[in-house]
């Protein structure tokens, strides 16, 4: 076995272990460890990705001494490696972009705890990405949930604690349903490994046995993950959690945590149930409808919002609706579009959160729009970055948002029954997005009267500006040269089957 095949295992264990190590380190060292680990994991994922692209085959890695149905396994394919790499990039940039705000938001003595949480979150995301075992997935979903909750409430204002409680309650409901679905699935198939379950499910379907429990189990798992990833009716916790936590937390939560669950759902769809079997159930229609509703209601709530960070948070609800709409189309193209949207949304949303903090900082810390007037002149980099993010969200060509919308539309055109509904809702949602994002952009570029707040220059915030630059580049790169990424996603999804 090639040495590179060890990399997924190394990255999971490295980030887990670094979490433990950080608990005895002072804050500064913990920060360094955190950065190094993220970079190391990112490099390993990149190498792994290149290796996988060159071999063109996924591989299975034993976690222990025992092969498939007996021991744990992880599995790496193009999509997994790509996701891991992307998650690392976003996480590094989010951490770097929010680093200067951390001392003001978190008590000094708790900084190293913050880095522990981030490390463990990374490890759980990696495990969710790579795992080939349903129960392992459940355990790491829990780590993900708890560390995300920690990230929400580490900035201890009343709102975040309340948001954390709501988040936990919703998440636990989701976990419960997921676990129950998992147990039923285990009862029907006798396996916990994804590939074995898939074989058994195919046999069961072919034999026509246990149809009802099978569908119920799939539905329970889906609903559980939908609740955890804040699909429309279950999003009540989201605005407070994203709106009031620390900057890096908000960026990470919105762009990575929910995406981890969604990626797990994709894995379940492809590797556990089988894409065709999943599409023959009515579940996709439910996902489709809730996705569409999320797209509209999320945007409507965002328009009403008077607080820039809550507005961005609500926009997340809409964007998650897009992803589920892609699932709901039930075609390969829809799935590709959804996966691409995961990337594009992660890149854009974290950019917006990080840029928004730059704007609020030069407006006396207020997030009200009225105070943000002209903020883009006081902090030019944040202004440009926010504009770029908004344009991407609105779907202007050359930015990543346009490509994902294009992919969704292309996917929609292929599905007879759902074409009109999805295109019309896509249109309405785009226009609504435009309303609230462009409103904000114009607001921050409006100069009016004497401003009581002073601006900042490049010298005051080099690291921050560079982070933003990288974010913008990432966004434009996804928007301009999307074809390799789309090819990679297609290849990865093909490897799943």
């Amino acid at each position, binding site marked *: 076995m090639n040495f590179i095949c060890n990399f997924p295992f190394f990255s999971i264990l490295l980030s887990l272990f670094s979490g433990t190590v950080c608990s005895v380190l002072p804050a500064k060292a913990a920060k360094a460890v955190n950065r190094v680990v993220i970079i190391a994991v990112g490099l390993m994922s990149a190498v792994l990705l290149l290796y996988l692209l060159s071999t063109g085959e996924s591989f299975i890695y034993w976690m222990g001494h025992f092969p498939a149905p007996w021991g744990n396994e992880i599995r790496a394919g193009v999509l997994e490696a790509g996701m891991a790499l992307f998650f690392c990039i976003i996480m590094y940039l989010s951490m770097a972009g929010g680093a200067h705000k951390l001392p003001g938001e978190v008590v000094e003595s708790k900084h190293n705890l913050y880095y522990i949480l981030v490390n463990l979150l990374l490890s759980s995301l990696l495990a969710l990405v790579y795992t080939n075992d349903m129960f392992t997935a459940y355990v790491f979903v829990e780590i993900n949930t708890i560390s995300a909750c920690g990230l929400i409430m580490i900035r201890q204002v009343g709102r975040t604690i309340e948001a954390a*409680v709501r988040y936990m309650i919703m998440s636990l409901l989701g976990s419960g349903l997921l676990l129950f679905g998992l147990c039923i699935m285990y009862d029907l198939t006798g396996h916990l490994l994804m590939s074995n379950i898939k074989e058994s499910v195919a046999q069961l379907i072919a034999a026509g046995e246990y149809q009802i429990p099978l569908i119920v189990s799939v539905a329970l798992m889906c609903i559980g993950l939908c609740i955890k990833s804040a699909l429309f009716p279950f999003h009540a916790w989201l605005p407070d959690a994203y709106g009031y936590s620390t900057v890096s937390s908000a960026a990470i939560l919105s762009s990575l945590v929910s995406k981890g669950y969604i990626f797990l759902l994709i894995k379940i769809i492809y590797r556990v149930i089988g894409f065709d079997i999943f599409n023959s159930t009515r579940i996709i229609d439910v996902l489709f409808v809730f996705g569409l509703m999320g797209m509209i209601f999320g945007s409507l709530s965002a328009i009403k919002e008077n607080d820039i960070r809550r507005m961005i948070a609500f926009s997340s609800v809409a964007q998650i609706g897009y992803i589920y709409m892609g699932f709901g189309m039930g075609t390969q193209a829809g799935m590709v579009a959804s996966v691409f949207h995961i990337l594009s949304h992660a890149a854009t949303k974290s950019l917006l959160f990080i840029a928004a903090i730059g704007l609020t900082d030069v407006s006396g810390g207020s997030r009200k729009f009225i105070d943000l007037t002209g903020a883009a002149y006081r902090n030019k980099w944040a202004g440009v970055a926010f504009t770029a993010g908004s344009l991407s969200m609105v779907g202007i060509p050359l930015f990543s948002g346009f490509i994902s919308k294009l992919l969704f539309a292309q996917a929609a055109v292929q599905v007879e029954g759902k074409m009109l509904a999805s295109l019309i809702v896509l249109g309405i949602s785009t226009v609504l997005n435009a309303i609230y994002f462009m409103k904000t952009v114009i607001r921050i570029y409006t100069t009016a009267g004497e401003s009581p707040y002073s601006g900042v220059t490049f010298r005051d915030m080099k690291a921050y500006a560079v982070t933003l630059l990288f974010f913008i580049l990432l966004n434009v790169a996804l928007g301009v040269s999307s074809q390799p990424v789309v090819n990679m996603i297609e290849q990865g999804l093909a490897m799943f089957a």
Partner: protein
Amino acid sequence: MGPNLFTNYGEAVSAVLFCIGFTNLLLQTNLIKKIIGLNIMDSAIYLFLAEKGYIAGRVAPIVVNGVTSTEAYINPIPSGLVLTGIVVSVSVTALMLSLTIRLYTRYHTLNLDEISMQLKKEGK
């Protein structure tokens, strides 16, 4: 209705318990009761799993006298899963309880609705 409802009475009970826990988690306004509901929900799932491992007339999977035949023992997998699950649920419970204390020191109530009312009233 399928054929096995009465044979699977253990699972049926666990389903009922699951839903009781679920309802508690959704409906109770008191946080501590919500947490109890959560625990009941988790226990119900573990009961379900344990029932799945059970085989009538066999004993626990601890090798006695070197007998290692499948006919002697029940299925060990669900027990292992439940063990893992119990740890997860106790961790979550501890976390939720500490959140409760924190909320209570700040808002002096255990009622989540009241807390959000208070938050809205403060005007963000």
